[in-house]
C-alpha cells in the first residue's frame, strides 16, 4: 500500500513538472520570469564580476612566467609602436579635420546598447569549441539576432544568437559556430569567413594560395554579414598555413580580447 501511495506521489511530481512547463510555454509565467530576471540582474552581474576577477587573477598567475620571458621582446615592440603611434596621431588629426569639413555628424550610424555579462556556459561545452556568454539585455532593449557585440576597446567579441525579453546569448568569435564575414588588412584585402577554433583562436579557411598574408596583419569585419558594421577588429594573424601542394591556405587569428576580463560589453544595434 505504501508502495502504491509513493508511486502515486511520483506521478504528482511529474504532473507538477508538466504544469510548470505548461505555464511557461503558454507565457502565463512570463511576467513573473521577467520580473525575476530584472530583479536579479544587478546581483548576477556583481557575482559574475567577482568570479571573473578571480578567474583573471588565476590566469594571470599562470601566465606570469611567460610574461617575464616576453617582456624584453615587448619592450622593443613598444618602442617601435610608439613611433608608429605618433604617425597615426598625425593622421588622426588630419582625418578629424577632413571629417569636419565634410560635415560628418558621427563616425558611425550605429546605436549602442550597453550590457553586463551575467553568465557563461552553464555546462561544459558538449559541442567542441562552443563558447557563449549571457548578457542582461534582450529583445525588449532592441536587441535581435545577428547583431555584433564589442568590448570596451571596440574589438568585436561575438554576435547575438538568441534573445529573450531581458537576456541574450552571445556566441564568441572563438566559438566554432560563430562565423563572420571578414577582411584581412593585407595588400590584397583578402576576404573570407572566420570561425572559432577549439574555443581558443579564430580561423579563416579557403584563402587562395596567391594571396599574400603576413603575420600580424589585422583582420576586420567586412560588413557583408548583414547587421555587423565594417571595420570592427576581430584579431591579428598569428599563423599562416600554406602548403605548396594545396589549392587553399588558411590562417589562425589571435583574438584581441580576454574572456576573463569581459564584464561589460556593447551591442551595436542598427
Amino acid at each position: 500500500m505504501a508502495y502504491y501511495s509513493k508511486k502515486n506521489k511520483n506521478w504528482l511530481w511529474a504532473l507538477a513538472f508538466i504544469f510548470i512547463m505548461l505555464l511557461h510555454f503558454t507565457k502565463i509565467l512570463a511576467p513573473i520570469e521577467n520580473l525575476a530576471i530584472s530583479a536579479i540582474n544587478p546581483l548576477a552581474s556583481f557575482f559574475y564580476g567577482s568570479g571573473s576577477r578571480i578567474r583573471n587573477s588565476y590566469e594571470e598567475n599562470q601566465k606570469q612566467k611567460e610574461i617575464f620571458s616576453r617582456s624584453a621582446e615587448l619592450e622593443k615592440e613598444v618602442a617601435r609602436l610608439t613611433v608608429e603611434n605618433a604617425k597615426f596621431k598625425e593622421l588622426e588629426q588630419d582625418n578629424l579635420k577632413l571629417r569636419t569639413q565634410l560635415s560628418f555628424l558621427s563616425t558611425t550610424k550605429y546605436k549602442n546598447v550597453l550590457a553586463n555579462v551575467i553568465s557563461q556556459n552553464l555546462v561544459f561545452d558538449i559541442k567542441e569549441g562552443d563558447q557563449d556568454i549571457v548578457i542582461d539585455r534582450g529583445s525588449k532593449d532592441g536587441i535581435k539576432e545577428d547583431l555584433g557585440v564589442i568590448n570596451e576597446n571596440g574589438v568585436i567579441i561575438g554576435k547575438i544568437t538568441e534573445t529573450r525579453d531581458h537576456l541574450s546569448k552571445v556566441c564568441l568569435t572563438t566559438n566554432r559556430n560563430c562565423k563572420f564575414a571578414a577582411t584581412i588588412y593585407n595588400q590584397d584585402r583578402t576576404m573570407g569567413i572566420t570561425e572559432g577554433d577549439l574555443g581558443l583562436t579564430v580561423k579563416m579557411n579557403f584563402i587562395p594560395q596567391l594571396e599574400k598574408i603576413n603575420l600580424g596583419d589585422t583582420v576586420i569585419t567586412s560588413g557583408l554579414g548583414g547587421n555587423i558594421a565594417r571595420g570592427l577588429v576581430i584579431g591579428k594573424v598569428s599563423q599562416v598555413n600554406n602548403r605548396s601542394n594545396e589549392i587553399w591556405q588558411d590562417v589562425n587569428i589571435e583574438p584581441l580580447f580576454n574572456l576573463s576580463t569581459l564584464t561589460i560589453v556593447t551591442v551595436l544595434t542598427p
Partner: protein
Amino acid sequence: MSRLKYYFEWFFYFLVFSLVAIIQATFISALPPVYFAINLPLTFLLFSLLIFKRESTLILAIIVGFWLDLLSFNFFGLNILIFLVTILLIDFLLNNWLTNRSLYSFLVLSALSVLIYNILLYSILAATYSGQNNFSFFLFESRFWGQLAWQMIWITGFMLLFFNLANSLSKRLKPFFLEKK
C-alpha cells in the same frame, strides 16, 4: 503563530536556494576550470534530502531548477527535470540500498548523485544537439570524465564537511560503525 513560522521558514529556504542557483549560474560559471566543477545546487539538495523530507527537497529542487532554467539558454524545464529525477533516484537508493546512514553511505550517495545528474544532463543535451555536425558523444569525451571526477571530489568534500558539522551540532547524523562481537 506556528503557521506563520512555517511560511517564514519556507520563505527563508526559497531565498537560500534561489541564491544558491544564482551563484551557480553567475559566480561559479565564471571561475577557473577546477572550481567551475563545483555543483552547489546539487550539494545543497543532497544536504536537504538528508535533513528534510523527500517532498520538501523536491520543492527546493523545483525552485533551484527554475532559476537555472531562467538564466540558461537550454530549453526551459531541463534543470527542473534533472534535479527532480536525480533527487527521486537518490531517495530511492537511500531508502533501499544505502540505508545505514553512515558517513560512508553518504559519500557513496554523493558520488552517485553526481553521476546520475551528469549522465541525465548530457544525455538530454546530446539528444538535443545530435543533429549538429560538430557534435561528439559525451561518453567518449575526456573532458566529460575529468569534469565528473572534479565534481565528485568537490561534492564528497562538501559532504564530509557538512557531516562533521552536523554531527557536532546534532546526533541525528552521528556516524556509526558495525562492530564484531
